[in-house]
C-alpha cells in the first residue's frame, strides 16, 4: 500500500535529564527502575531515594534493545556504569524483557508508589493513562495498592488512539490537548466507546466541515467520558492524581476534573516517570532487604 509521505504528527519528542548538583559517588544506594510501556519506555535512576536522572523514549519493536537503550541513555553523562547500579526493577508491558532487572513488579504497584513519591502521601486515587490502556488505582498513605481497575476492550485506545487522532487532524500530538480546549463551546462528544468508532466519527465530522479544534474537543470529551466511567467504577477518593504520558494532555485531564468535580494535584515532576520511579524505589527497598537493612 504505497503511502504518500506525510508529516509524522504522532511522533512525540524523546528526552533525558540529570538533576543538577547531585553526586552518586558515595551514595548508600543507586537503583534503577525501567518501565517498558506499550508505546513509551522510561528509565529512572534513584540515588539514596532521590530522583537523580531519567530518560524517556519510544518503545521499539524489540523490547530488550529498548530496555538497554533507554537505560544507557539515562546513565549517559552521569559517569554511572551498570556496575555501579545496586539493583534494577523492571515494570510495564515489557517488564519481563529487561535483561538486567533482578525483579519485575507490575506497573500498577509502581505507578501507585511513584505517584506517592511525586505527589506526596495524601494521594488516594491514581489515574494512569498509558499507551494502550488506562488504569484507575486506589492506594493508601504509603502508596500501596488497595484496589485497581483497567479499561475493557470496548473502551480501550488511549495513547495509541491519540497518536492516530493526531495524524487524522494533522496536529502535533503535544498540542492536541491545547487545541481541544480552544473551543468557545463544548460540542457533543463522539461515540464514547470504541477508539475505532471514535476515529471514524471524527473523520466524518471533519468531512462535515467541523473545524479541527471542535473535532478535537469532541474526541477528547469522549476519552474523558471513558476514563471517568472507569474511575467511578473503582471509586474516586481525594487526593486524585494522574500519571503516564497522556496526563500531560490538558484537554483530557481538565475534562476529567470537570466531570468528577475534583481537581487533580499538580505534579512536582514529569508524571510520565511515575512507573519507573516506583520501580526504582522498589529496587531500593529490595536492595536494602538484600543488605538485611529491613
Amino acid at each position: 500500500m504505497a503511502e504518500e509521505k506525510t508529516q509524522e504528527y504522532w511522533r512525540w519528542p524523546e528526552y533525558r535529564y540529570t538533576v543538577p548538583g547531585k553526586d552518586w559517588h558515595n551514595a548508600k544506594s543507586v537503583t534503577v527502575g525501567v518501565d517498558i510501556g506499550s508505546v513509551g519506555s522510561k528509565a529512572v535512576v534513584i540515588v539514596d531515594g532521590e530522583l537523580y536522572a531519567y530518560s524517556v523514549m519510544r518503545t521499539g519493536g524489540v523490547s530488550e534493545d529498548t530496555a538497554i537503550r533507554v537505560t544507557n541513555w539515562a546513565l549517559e553523562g552521569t559517569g554511572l556504569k551498570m556496575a555501579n547500579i545496586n539493583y534494577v526493577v523492571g515494570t510495564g508491558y515489557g517488564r519481563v524483557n529487561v535483561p538486567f532487572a533482578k525483579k519485575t513488579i507490575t506497573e500498577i504497584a509502581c505507578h501507585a508508589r511513584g505517584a506517592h513519591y511525586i505527589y506526596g502521601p495524601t494521594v488516594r486515587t491514581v489515574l494512569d493513562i498509558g499507551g494502550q490502556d488506562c488504569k484507575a488505582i486506589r492506594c493508601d498513605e504509603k502508596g500501596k495498592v488497595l484496589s485497581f481497575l483497567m479499561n475493557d476492550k470496548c473502551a480501550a485506545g488511549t495513547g495509541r488512539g491519540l497518536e492516530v487522532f493526531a495524524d487524522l487532524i494533522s496536529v502535533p500530538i503535544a498540542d492536541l490537548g491545547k487545541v481541544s480546549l480552544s473551543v468557545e463551546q463544548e460540542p457533543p462528544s463522539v461515540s464514547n466507546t470504541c477508539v475505532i468508532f471514535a476515529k471514524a466519527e471524527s473523520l466524518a465530522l471533519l468531512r462535515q466541515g467541523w473545524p479541527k479544534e471542535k473535532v478535537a474537543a469532541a474526541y477528547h470529551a469522549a476519552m474523558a467520558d471513558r476514563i471517568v466511567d472507569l474511575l467511578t467504577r473503582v471509586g474516586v477518593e481525594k487526593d486524585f492524581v494522574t500519571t503516564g504520558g497522556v496526563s500531560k494532555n490538558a484537554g483530557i485531564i481538565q475534562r476529567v476534573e470537570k466531570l468528577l468535580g475534583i481537581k487533580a494535584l499538580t505534579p512536582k515532576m514529569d508524571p510520565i516517570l511515575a512507573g519507573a520511579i516506583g520501580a526504582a524505589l522498589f529496587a531500593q527497598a529490595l536492595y536494602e532487604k538484600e543488605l538485611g537493612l529491613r
Partner: protein
Amino acid sequence: MITAGVDIGAKYVKIVFFDGGKVIGRAKALIGFDVAKSASDLFESALKNADIKRNNIKKVVATGLNRESIHSKPPVNAEDVVSEVVADAVGAFHLVPTAKTVIDVGAEEGRGVKIGEGGKVKDFVINERCAAGAGTFIETMARALEVKVEDMGPLSLKSTQAIPMNAQCCVFAESEVVTLIHSKVPKEDISKAIHDAIASRISSMVLRVGVEKDVVLVGGVALNPGFLPPLKKELNADIIVPEYPEYVSALGAAIIAAKG
C-alpha cells in the same frame, strides 16, 4: 464518448476516464479535510493530464462514502451518484466477466458483493462497526513494529508460524500484538498474525453472502501481498486481483455513466 467515474472513499479519491470500453486515464490523491475540494482539484488536474475538456465528458458519476460531495455541485457537477456496492460489481464484472464474488477491502471498510447476470448485485455485505478499520489497523501496527507500512505484507510472507488472534476487533487484536512484541515473537510472525486476522475477519464477513467462483479482490488492500495468501486459505478459493485494483469502483462508476 468519454465518461468519468469518481470514487471518493474514506482516504483517497480516485478517478477513471472511460471511452469506447477502454480506460483512457486514471488519477488518485489523498483526501484532505475539504472533500469536495480534494475531489475537484484532482478532477481538474486529471483533465489537464489526460488533455480532456469537461464539456467533452458526457457524464460524470460519483461513488464512494463521500459521493454526494460533488453530486451536481460545481465545478465537477457529477450528473449522478451510485453506491460503491453497485460500482464494485459493475467495475469488477467489466474486468473479470466470470466474476461471481467481489471483495473490496479499503482503509476503513470491507465489502463482499455477490454478482449475477451482467454484473447485477445479487447480495452484499459491508463490515459492521466492530469489524472496521482493516487498512488502518495494518498502518497502526506497522508503527508499533517499527516497520514501513509497505513492508508489512512482504515481511509476513517470511513467516512460517501461525498465531491465532482475535479476528473481529482491531482494539482487541492490537493488545494481542503488543503482547506478542513483548514476548519476543519475530516481527515476521506478528505481521503474519495481523494479516491472518484481517483475512479471517474479511472472509467470515464474505461467507455471509457465500463465496462463489470466480472471486475478485479489489480495493487498496488488494495491493498488499501479505493479505492474499491467508485470504485464499480462509475462503479456500483462488482469488483474481485485477490490474489497478484500487480503481475498480471508479471504473464501475464510469461504466455506469457510459450506459447513460
